[in-house]
């Protein structure tokens, strides 16, 4: 599961390492920290214009 560091600080996560403010990282199952928000795992689909 991907998580984004939503705090204004770069944070060190045990077992993961440094996560810069605003950066998104894969976190292990069970990860929970209020400074991070879950990011959808769904791929971003870019629709092409119909010409």
């Amino acid at each position, binding site marked *: 599961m991907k998580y984004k560091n939503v*705090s204004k600080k770069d*944070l*060190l*996560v045990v077992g993961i390492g440094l996560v810069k403010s605003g950066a998104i990282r894969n*976190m292990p199952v069970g990860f*929970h*920290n*209020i*400074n991070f928000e879950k990011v959808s795992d769904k791929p971003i689909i870019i629709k092409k214009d119909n010409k």
Partner: protein
Amino acid sequence: MSNYLSDQQYIALKVEAAENTPITPDVFLPLISEGIVSDLGRSPDERIAGLDWKSDDLLKGRHLHGGPVELYADPDTLGHIFNMFYKKGATGGDAAVGYTHPFTAANPKSYTIEIAKGLYAQRYWGVKANNLKLEFDNNKLKASIDIKAVGQFSTATLAVALTGADMTEAVFNQDYILKPTEGLVAGDVVVIGGVDVTITVVEADGVTITFAATTVTSDIGGSVYLKKQTYTTPDPVLQDPLFEGNTLIGVGVDETTATTASGAKATATPFQEFVIELKNNLFEQAASGQHDPIKILPKMKEGRILTKKLFADVDQHRKWIDKTKQAITLISKGRFIKTDRTTWDELSFKFHKVKLNPNSNPLEVGEYIYDNQEFDILYDRTDVKAITLSLVNRTSGVAYGD
């Protein structure tokens, strides 16, 4: 069965936006030890009821929450400790030169704190510091605080079974208190039947939490617990505590003289031991309609300084006999903040009027004679204050509730 090491737990905290309103802690502090407990005031039911045993149950009493926390006093941690003990004034400075936080002896901000205990998090809210002890522990400044809180959340029990797919709410039983969801906030994760559930709403009824449709199964009586967070620390890693070796303590006839004396090693006083003990004398206000205190109120503030230094002359003995006013200033510096090395982390603690109560010079075989001193910290009518406290660190006032 799993076992858990203390070393892998944490204490986290956050200043409350509104006093006594819980908030999810997001600042993780380096902890030495904690012993906070909830005294639920329970006593055996000793009513005469034909038993051949003293009691067959416990009756509820008034709740009290509090206990000790020990931390090494690095400049940023110290800011939170002072913020829950004294009132912070307007913060000056910026990230480049450091932030200067003044504190006065007035009512502090309240905090929510969370302590990880193996699987679960023990949360207390409405937290203020009752006592604060600052001492040098083998050169490192250690802060021991004794906190009081208005309530706790850790675990709860389901009153209504959850039966599988698309569950959206859980209802807690009221064996503990009438509003067992107190302490939880939206965004918290609780574990029910082994499933992580993220709370979207803590309902006003005090017994119900709402969450997005989740598959979870648990019988009535199933346990619910607040999930502990994954520990994070700011980068760079933990700061050093302030050190005695970077601290100068000046003693003088008044604050100005003491502060001048603290400006150089040659004029500072070399103490063998130096301990500051401060008290807020917090009062837990009771209220009808709840078992917990409704508010934590400070009473009169007081403090004393315990010191030990080599006896050199009769000066301190005489000042004790004569009840002479003295002043003490402690300046402790940390790392440089500004790149040109003109500002640094700094604790400045000034005691405008102290008097010895008592000063003794005990004799022991093989030992030097010391001035063993206890100073009462007094209000100085000349300077119109008892203390001046200022902290320079790298944390903006926002983290302290600005």
